[in-house]
């Protein structure tokens, strides 16, 4: 029915998000950089001064490698999941394909992600080990992660229309994730019998691979990469499926 220009539409929706978010902020994009830096400072202070643990001197960088993926994941999931409700007035009056909303919402979070990754890489260049050939893995790893989040956003944005409490489930899960994703501790500390919890968690896998590449300077483990790829593809597929099943009921429920 709608035979328009998908790319142009998605680009416009992303631009809208970006402009609306930053137009009323005097510091604009700087806020995107400030938040992870403040968190990095706080966590470093707590875990090296107050609750001192044996740690390597890369601790702040290691924390940042955890914060950037976690921040992206929680924000993209949350805004993606509310994208259908937020665009209710469009869904009820404009015959555009519905799935553009969660997808554009995740992609507009990718814009912030790019800014934060640029910050992370800049810090690594100055204080860390500098560039190595394994940086080439980063686009693939992040691509898979984005696919995973898009799947989640599709599924949860559709379910959210039927069950408005969904946002509380997401909020709670995100709070738990801060502890279950190794942001302020390293994988080496996790006892063997609990590793399973981390291995199926795509955000934890992403953090692990970021540290592999950026701090340790070696390629991510093949098995972790394959697992992430499978989980991401399955999540995207099921998200798409759930969305298609529920989409026709949006109109009557918005």
């Amino acid at each position, binding site marked *: 029915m709608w035979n328009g220009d998908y790319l142009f539409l998605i680009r416009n929706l992303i631009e809208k998000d970006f402009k609306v978010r930053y137009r009323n902020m005097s510091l604009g994009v700087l806020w995107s950089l400030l938040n992870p830096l403040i968190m990095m400072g706080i966590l470093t202070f707590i875990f090296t001064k107050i609750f001192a643990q044996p740690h390597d001197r890369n601790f702040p960088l290691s924390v940042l490698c955890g914060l950037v993926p976690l921040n992206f994941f929680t924000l993209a999931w949350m805004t993606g999941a509310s994208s259908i409700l937020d665009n209710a007035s469009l869904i009820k*009056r404009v015959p*555009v394909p519905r799935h553009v909303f969660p997808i554009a919402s995740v992609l507009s979070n990718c814009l912030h992600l790019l800014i934060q990754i640029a910050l992370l890489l800049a810090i690594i260049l100055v204080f860390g080990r500098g560039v190595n050939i394994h940086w080439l893995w980063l686009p693939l790893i992040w691509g898979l992660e984005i696919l995973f989040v898009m799947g989640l956003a599709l599924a949860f944005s559709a379910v959210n229309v039927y069950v*408005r409490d969904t946002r509380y489930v997401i909020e709670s899960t995100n709070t738990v994730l801060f502890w279950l994703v190794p942001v302020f501790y390293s994988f080496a500390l996790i006892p063997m019998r609990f590793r399973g919890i981390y291995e199926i968690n795509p955000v934890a896998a992403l953090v692990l691979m970021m540290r592999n590449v950026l701090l340790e300077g070696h390629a991510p483990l093949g098995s972790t990469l394959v697992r992430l790829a499978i989980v991401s593809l399955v999540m995207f597929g099921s998200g798409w499926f759930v969305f298609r099943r529920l989409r026709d009921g949006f109109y009557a429920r918005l």
Partner: protein
Amino acid sequence: MPIEFQNVSKWFPHSTGRQLLRTHIARWFVRVHNEPFCALRNVSFQLGHGESLALVGSNGAGKSTLLSLAAGLTPPDQGKVLVQGRIAALLELGSGFHPDLTGAENLVLNAALLGLSKRQTSQLFDRIVEFSGIGEFIDDPLRTYSSGMVMRLAFSVAIQCEPDILLIDEVLAVGDASFQEKSKDALKSFRRAGKSLLFVSHSAGAVREMCDRAIWIDHGSVMMDGPVSEVLDAYQGRAVMQQGQ
């Protein structure tokens, strides 16, 4: 046929309830006998090229539901809705407009929502601004616009993006007299180009002027389909009769 409805029926749940977890859980235990409400019942009609069709009927008769189905916003529960060509729907004033974006930014976003490409949008941009008569205000945020200006912008995008079918739900009344004249002229040349118009209005004058055919809908069923003056007379006659009782 640009638009064809074949025995279309549409039901809506009386109340979908609040979409909360406890509502859904309660529904597993208590069977709610909630007869769905029939918004459209067995509606069939065709809209041809260059035709202009008005939908008349009292509030809640199903006119807006019919437009939503034609626009493809929701699928029919029974029957078929066939549409050929690109549709532009003006269903509510400024839907899809964001108050914090400027008029120009909203214009581009709206064109993208209607399905235009980047090239088509930049080609049409000046014509849309010119038609809307918004002039220098085009770079101001939309929240500073009056409702008439928002409507003019929305209407200008919809008419200038050259859709094959235009759906209009009671929005024309907002503009001032000179813009109303201008939009009526635009709609007339739109029809002369062989495009089709589906029009909902409570203003008998506008209906008579814009359309040559009308459908009268009551409680979701088509009561009458014919030349605009006959349908309007019958519809208004009934309204008068009801008042007399």
